[in-house]
């Protein structure tokens, strides 16, 4: 058997073994992989980075626990960046099961920076009917959320005194597995034209690229890779970056497989001629 024939008919267990090694190596040896940051993620980062201390930014934690693995890291990194820059996030959730989860992320990151609820950030909690809630927030946050998650009336929250609707904040990012992203584009951007960015799961990413191209959203963070890019930019040590060595080694291995297999294929075709 010629070398290329051997190569084409390689026992698939060698492939499994190589892939297995590619997954185990990062688990045993820790190494750093530079993350290639995509422009759509960088735009989100730059946007927040360019805000001035005291600016208000809306972060929508609109996912439920099922997509926690991919979207939680984004929430951590973005809130971390906000607090580091003394930007005041307004946080709310449009997902039925998101309220407790959002509270946990927010208070955890806030505690790290010693930020106080009501002064440095505001958590509004959950409201059903995402489309209506978004439209009402465009009128005034007090309409859908007369009080915040902890029961304080919005009017007596210091940082919200002059914040009425999307005009009073610098921008919006919604992290969601899909459903509310669409509402944000149609009812949020479509009516009020505030700068809007989205964080979505990897599977959903393909559906939101068209909006990026048409300019309806200014940035898009997708999947665990997007989260890792964001963490790389903000230098936040989170789950996103942790997963990158595994992803890189396995992707390199699979791409190498494709190249090797094609070399073998062309060599065998030439020898047949």
């Amino acid at each position: 058997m010629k070398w290329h024939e051997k190569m084409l008919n390689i026992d698939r267990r060698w492939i499994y073994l190589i892939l297995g090694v590619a997954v185990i190596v990062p688990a045993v040896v820790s190494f750093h992989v530079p993350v290639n940051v995509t422009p759509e993620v960088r735009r989100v980062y730059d946007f927040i980075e360019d805000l001035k201390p005291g600016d208000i930014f809306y972060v929508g934690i609109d996912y439920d626990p099922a997509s926690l693995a991919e979207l939680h890291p984004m929430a951590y990194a973005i809130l971390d960046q906000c607090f580091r820059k003394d930007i005041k996030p307004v946080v709310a959730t449009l997902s039925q099961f998101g309220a407790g989860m959002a509270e946990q992320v927010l208070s955890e990151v806030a505690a790290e920076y010693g930020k106080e609820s009501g002064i440095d950030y505001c958590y509004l909690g959950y409201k059903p009917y995402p489309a209506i809630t978004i439209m009402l927030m465009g009128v005034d946050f007090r309409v859908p959320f007369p009080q915040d998650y902890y029961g304080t009336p919005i009017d007596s929250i210091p940082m919200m005194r002059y914040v009425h609707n999307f005009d009073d904040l610098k921008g919006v990012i919604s992290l969601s597995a899909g459903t509310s992203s669409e509402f944000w584009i149609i009812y949020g951007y479509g009516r009020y034209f505030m700068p809007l960015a989205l964080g979505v799961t990897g599977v959903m990413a393909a559906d939101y690229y068209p909006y990026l191209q048409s300019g309806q959203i200014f940035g898009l963070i997708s999947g665990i890779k997007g989260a890792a890019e964001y963490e790389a930019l903000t230098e936040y040590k989170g789950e996103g970056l942790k997963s990158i060595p595994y992803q890189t080694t396995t992707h390199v291995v699979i791409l190498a497989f494709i190249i090797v297999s094609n070399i073998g294929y062309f060599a065998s075709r030439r020898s047949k001629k």
Partner: protein
Amino acid sequence: MIRFKIRLALILISASVLLLFGYISSPGQELEAPPEPLPAPPTNVVISDDPNDDGHTTIVSWQLSRDDGAGLNNVMAYEIFRSTSPEGEFLQVGVMGKGLDSYIDRGEKEKTRNGEPNPRYIGAGIDYYYKMRAKSTTGTYSEFSELVVGQAKNNWYHTGKTNIMIAVLIFSGLVIYFITAAKRGKELYVRPIAGIDAVDESIGRATEMGRPILFVLGTGTAADLATIAGYTILARVAKMTADYQTKVLVPVNEPVMLAVAQETVKSAYMEAGRPDMYDEQNIFYVTAMQFPFVAAVCGLMIREQTATNFYMGIFHAESLILAETGAITGAIQISGTDQLAQLPFFIAATDYTLIGEELYAASGYLSKEALLLGPVKAQDYAKVILLTLLGLAVITWSFGWGFFKSLISTIS
């Protein structure tokens, strides 16, 4: 006596101090802030029925307050109140922002909740009274608008679905027309599909090797259309295996599918004149859960050394596990599914794949019966109509004419 005078003096002094305080505190505030002008209420409130529901929803519409965006320009929102009687307790049912002039009042469908009457309930044919007021930016309210009354109706036709109904009727007409045309003996040409042509050959191969055939109907339910398309192919495969006396194994994951698959195979054997060959044991239930099912099927492939594997129906993540295990055993594999996410894996790992619509066309192809080929022709005509509509809609819409676009637009 003196004591009494002192007491009196004390009382008088404290009383005057209190009075003085009262004077300073209460009217003083009024002096500081002059009364704010209240916004005007919205006018012409109209209650109408939502024409497309089952009588639990009304639509409230109004004319904007004259201070909304004009006049005092201090309206922030509108509040909508509802009650079942003009004097009764009014419940705030909704808030809409400034500039908006209608509200859909979706009532709840349960008349009672925990034994108590449910205040959020809206029922068909009951009078509901509505009033509204405007809320100003400073939190003051306008007067209430005039009381109006309206009802929700139980509707019998959904006005937003007319185009879908027409499409269903036209398409059904096409199908019926082509079936009758085919019955009258009109020859229908159909292009070859590699996956279907390979069916016969792959069964022959299994027979030569003396090994069984595996047929997986997917992990959907018995009534999923892709599964039903799978039954037709199974019938064809079973009939051939009866002729060749080859065993066909059908593991299933749903009990109703088990019953249907057994009927399908049994009648195919009867049609082939070999009812004696039929063994119910070969069509068996494994388990409903996706991965345990797949583990069992993979084990089956390896231990029975199946020579040909069919995967026809609805598949999820398991598609590639099955296809790769089949490739290890060296089986010829033919797959077909309408699950977009799994098609790439079937295409990569099986020998032939029926892509989406091809799976549905397969039943016509395999039977070569005019009755079953007619619909394939109807599908093609429907495509021509749809593409024409699409082209017209895109071109006219580019020039700002939305008629054709509205023809294919649906309510969400």
